[in-house]
C-alpha cells in the first residue's frame, strides 16, 4: 500500500532548525513570512497531498492517459483534483505578486513541491512544467507577453510545456530542426515535429502555452542557432480568452514504463503562430532558465518518491510477520515476528531513511540559495548564491534521482514478492522514479555538466560556496572523532577534484570517464555535511527536547548510520576515479 503523510516534523527541522529560516527570511526581506505561517502552509499542503493527490496515484497509473483524434484525456479524478489544486491557489505559491502570485520564498515552495511529488508524481508534472515555463517567461519574455500570459499561467487556468526534444535530437540540441519564419506583424510561424513533450496535450486547463525551441531561417548551425518561441494551443483573444485553435496538434502519446498519468505527447507544429521569447539565436540560454529550475525540481521529484517508498516500506515491515528475530522471538504472542526485527530489513530501511532525510536537508540548503540568488541583500551574496545553485543543480538532479531509483527498489524489496506484484503500488514507485534519471538531461549529462562546466568555471570559483563551509566545519570540529568519516570523504573529494582538473585538462575523456563517480562522491560529501550539521543541531536541542527527544535521538542514530555505512563509499569512488579511463575506453566498439 502506498503510504504518505507529509513528513512535517522533518520539514520543520530542516527549514527552521537546521537552516535557520527566521534569520534567512529576515535576510531576504521576508520577515513577514513567519514560521507559524510556513507551518500552516506545510500542514495544509500535506493534507492536500495525502487526501487529494495520493488516492488517484495508483488508479492513474492503472488507467493511464487516453488519446483519441488529437485529444488527450487524463485518468479519472485528475481533472477534479487539478481544479481543486488551482482553486486552492497552490499554483501561485512562489510566483511574483505582480502577476497574481503569492511571492512565497523557495524554501517553502520546494517543500510543497516535494509533497506533491510524493503523493502523485504524474500529477505534479502538470503544474511543475507550468511553473518552469512561468520562470522562463519571467526571465526572458517581453513585457507584453508577460502581461498576456503570466497571470493565467500563475493562476493555473493555462498550463505550460517545454518543447526541446525531436526524434533525432535529445541530448544534442544542436541537431534541432523545427523552423520559425518571421511574419510582418512581428510574430513567427513555427513548423516541425516534437516528441516526448510532457503535458503537451491534456484536458486539465483551458489553454496550453508551449515554449518551443526552433531555428530562424538565417540561424547559424548548432546550438548557437536556436531561438525560443511561445506558441499557445489557442490564440488568445483581445480579452485574453482562448480564441482560434493554433496550428499545433497532438499526434499521439507515448506508452511508458511509468509516469503513466502524465501525458507524454508527440506534437506537430504546422505554421503555428508564435512569438519570440528573448533574443534571436539565444533560445537555449532562455530555455536554460527553465531547465535549471526543472532540474532542481526533478531532483525534488526523486526525493518525493523516495519518501513515499520509505513510509510504505516501514509500514509493511512493521506488519508483515515472517521468521523470528535472531536474538530470540520478539513477539511470542504472534505466529512470527514482524520483519522489522531482521538486520537486513533494518539495513534497507536505515539506508533509505539516511538518504531521504539527507537529501531533504540538502534541498533545504539549495532552496535557501535560490532565495538568496534573487533576494540576497547585496550583489556579492547574490552572486555567491548563484554560483552555489549552479554547482548544486546537476548534483541535486542526478544524485537525488539515482538514489530515488535505488531506494524505491530497496523499499520494494522489503515487500518481497508482494512488492513485485502490482497490488501494493511499490512497483509503480520504482517505475515512476526511473524517468527522473533520464529527462531534463540524463544523469550522465548532469555529471558532465558538473565536471566539464561547473568545476572549471571561473577557475573553480563555483566550488567555493561548497568546499569552504565543509572545510571550515571539519576544522572547527576536528576534536570530535565522529567528524572522521566526513573528513576522510572530503579529503577524497579534494584529491579527486585536483586529479580531474589536471587529467581532464590534458585529455577531456579522462574527465568524462570520472564524471559520474565524481558527482556521486561530491553528493555523498554534501549529504555527509548535512548529517554532521544535523548531529550538531540535534545534540544541542536534545537536553531540552522533552516530547521531541525521540525525534532528535533518531536523527543522531541515522547520522551515525550514514557516517559508518554509507559515507565510506567515498573512498571506493576515489579509487575508481584515480584508475582513469584506460579500461573504459580500451575496447574497440566492435568488441562489445
Amino acid at each position, binding site marked *: 500500500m502506498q503510504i504518505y503523510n507529509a513528513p512535517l516534523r522533518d520539514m520543520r527541522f530542516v527549514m527552521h532548525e537546521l537552516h535557520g529560516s527566521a534569520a534567512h527570511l529576515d535576510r531576504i526581506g521576508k520577515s513577514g513570512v513567519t514560521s507559524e*505561517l510556513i507551518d500552516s502552509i506545510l500542514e495544509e499542503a500535506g493534507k492536500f497531498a495525502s487526501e487529494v493527490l495520493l488516492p488517484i496515484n495508483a488508479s492513474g497509473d492503472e488507467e493511464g492517459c487516453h488519446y483519441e483524434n488529437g485529444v488527450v484525456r487524463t485518468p479519472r479524478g485528475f481533472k477534479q483534483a487539478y481544479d481543486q489544486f488551482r482553486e486552492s*491557489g497552490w499554483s501561485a505559491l512562489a510566483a511574483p505578486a505582480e502577476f497574481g502570485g503569492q511571492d512565497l520564498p523557495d524554501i517553502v515552495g520546494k517543500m510543497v513541491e516535494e509533497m506533491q511529488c510524493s503523493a502523485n508524481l504524474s500529477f505534479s508534472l502538470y503544474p511543475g512544467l507550468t511553473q518552469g515555463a512561468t520562470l522562463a517567461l519571467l526571465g526572458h519574455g517581453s513585457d507584453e507577453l508577460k502581461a498576456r500570459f503570466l497571470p493565467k499561467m500563475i493562476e493555473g487556468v493555462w498550463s505550460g510545456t517545454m518543447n526541446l526534444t525531436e526524434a533525432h535530437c535529445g541530448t544534442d540540441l544542436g541537431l534541432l530542426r523545427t523552423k520559425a519564419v518571421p511574419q510582418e506583424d512581428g510574430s513567427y510561424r513555427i513548423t516541425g515535429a516534437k516528441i516526448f513533450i510532457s503535458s503537451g496535450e491534456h484536458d486539465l486547463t483551458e489553454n496550453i502555452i508551449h515554449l518551443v525551441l526552433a531555428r530562424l531561417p538565417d540561424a547559424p548551425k548548432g546550438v548557437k542557432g536556436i531561438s525560443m518561441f511561445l506558441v499557445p494551443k489557442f490564440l488568445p483573444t483581445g480579452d485574453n480568452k482562448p480564441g482560434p485553435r493554433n496550428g499545433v496538434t497532438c499526434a499521439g502519446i507515448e506508452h511508458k514504463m511509468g509516469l503513466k498519468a502524465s501525458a507524454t505527447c508527440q506534437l506537430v507544429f504546422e505554421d503555428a503562430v508564435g512569438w519570440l521569447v528573448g533574443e534571436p539565436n539565444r533560445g537555449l540560454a532562455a530555455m536554460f532558465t527553465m531547465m535549471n529550475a526543472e532540474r532542481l525540481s526533478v531532483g525534488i521529484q526523486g526525493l518525493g518518491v523516495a519518501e513515499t517508498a520509505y513510509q510504505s516500506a516501514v509500514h509493511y515491515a512493521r506488519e508483515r510477520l515472517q521468521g523470528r528475530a535472531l536474538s530470540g522471538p520478539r513477539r511470542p504472542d504472534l505466529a512470527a515476528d514482524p520483519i522489522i526485527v531482521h538486520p537486513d530489513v533494518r539495513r534497507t530501511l536505515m539506508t533509505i531513511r539516511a538518504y531521504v532525510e539527507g537529501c531533504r536537508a540538502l534541498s533545504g540548503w539549495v532552496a535557501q540559495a535560490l532565495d538568496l540568488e534573487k533576494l540576497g541583500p547585496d550583489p556579492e551574496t547574490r552572486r555567491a548564491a548563484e554560483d552555489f545553485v549552479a554547482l548544486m543543480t546537476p548534483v541535486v538532479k542526478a544524485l537525488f534521482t539515482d538514489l530515488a531509483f535505488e531506494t524505491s527498489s530497496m523499499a520494494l524489496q522489503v515487500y518481497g514478492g508482494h512488492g513485485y506484484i502490482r497490488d501494493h503500488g511499490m512497483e509503480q514507485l520504482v517505475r515512476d522514479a526511473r524517468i527522473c534519471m533520464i529527462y531534463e538531461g540524463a544523469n550522465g549529462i548532469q555529471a558532465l555538466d558538473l565536471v566539464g562546466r561547473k568545476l572549471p568555471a571561473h577557475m573553480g570559483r563555483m566550488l567555493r560556496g561548497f568546499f569552504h563551509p565543509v572545510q571550515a566545519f571539519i576544522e572547527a570540529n576536528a576534536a570530535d572523532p565522529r567528524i572522521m568519516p566526513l573528513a576522510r570523504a572530503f579529503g577524497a573529494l579534494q584529491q579527486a577534484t585536483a586529479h580531474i582538473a589536471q587529467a581532464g585538462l590534458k585529455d577531456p575523456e579522462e574527465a568524462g570517464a570520472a564524471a559520474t563517480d565524481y558527482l556521486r562522491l561530491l553528493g555523498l560529501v554534501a549529504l555527509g555535511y548535512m548529517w554532521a550539521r544535523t548531529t550538531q543541531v540535534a545534540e544541542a536541542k536534545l537536553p531540552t527536547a522533552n516530547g521531541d527527544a525521540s525525534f532528535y535521538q533518531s536523527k543522531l542514530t541515522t547520522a551515525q548510520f550514514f557516517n559508518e555505512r554509507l559515507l565510506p563509499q567515498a573512498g571506493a569512488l576515489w579509487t575508481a576515479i584515480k584508475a582513469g579511463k584506460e579500461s573504459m575506453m580500451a575496447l574497440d566498439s566492435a568488441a562489445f
Partner: protein
Amino acid sequence: MKLLVPVKRVVDYNVKVRVKSDQTGVELTGVKMSMNPFDEIAVEEAVRLKEKGIAAEIVAISIGPAACGETIRTALAMGADRGILVETEASPEPLAVAKMLRAIAEREQPGLVIMGKQAIDDDMNATGQMLAALLGWPQGTFASKVEIAGDTATVTREVDGGLETVALTLPAVVTADLRLNEPRYASLPNIMKARKKPIETIKPADLGVDPAPRLTVLKVTEPPKRQAGRKVGSVAELVDKLRNEAKVI
C-alpha cells in the same frame, strides 16, 4: 447574524493513540494535533451560511493551551472572521467548557452556535447539549442538514433508525454530524489572510469560570487486544459454542 463556532484541538485522527506508561492519559508529546473533525464540519457549515449571505460574521473559539491558537487559525483559513482563545493549561470538562461558551455567547449575542457533535479524543458528546441547556436555547444535535429562514433553523437530525427534522427558534445551538457537509481545503491565499485576522486571548477567570476538572481519572488503559476469530463447521457447532463456551445464549 453572527455565528459562534467552538473548535477543539485534538490528536489528529490519523495518529495511532498510545496510552502513557503511567496510565494517567494518552501520549500527547510529539503527537500531531489537529482540529476535531466534527468541528471542521461545523466551521464549513458556518462558512457556507456566510457565503449564502445568511451569516455576517463567524467567530471561532478554542479553549485550551496557547497552541489552540493554531486550531483557531485553521478555522480562520477556512473562512472564519476572528477568533477567541480561552487560554488554560487545565483540560476543562464539558460542563466547564459549556459554561465558558455560555459566557462568550452572552457577550457576543450570536444567532447560532454551531459545533461538532463530539470531540474524537474523549467522545463525550455533551458540550453542545449542556450549552443549550445553560443558555436556555433550543438545540438541534447530530445535524445532517441545516436550513435557516428568518429566525427559524430547520435541522435534520440523524437519529437511530432514521432522520428527524426539528424547527428551532433562533438563537439556537446546532451540533454537526459527519454527513452535514465535506469540509473544504483551506486555500493558500486564505491561509495567508488568516494570519492577519484578529485572535483575542482571554482566561477562564475573565469569563467567571473555574476550569478545574471535577472528575478524577483513575487510570487509562489500552482496549483489550482482540482475540483471533475461529471458524466453525456448522450451525450446530456455533450454537453449541455460544451456549457452552461463550455462555451467551
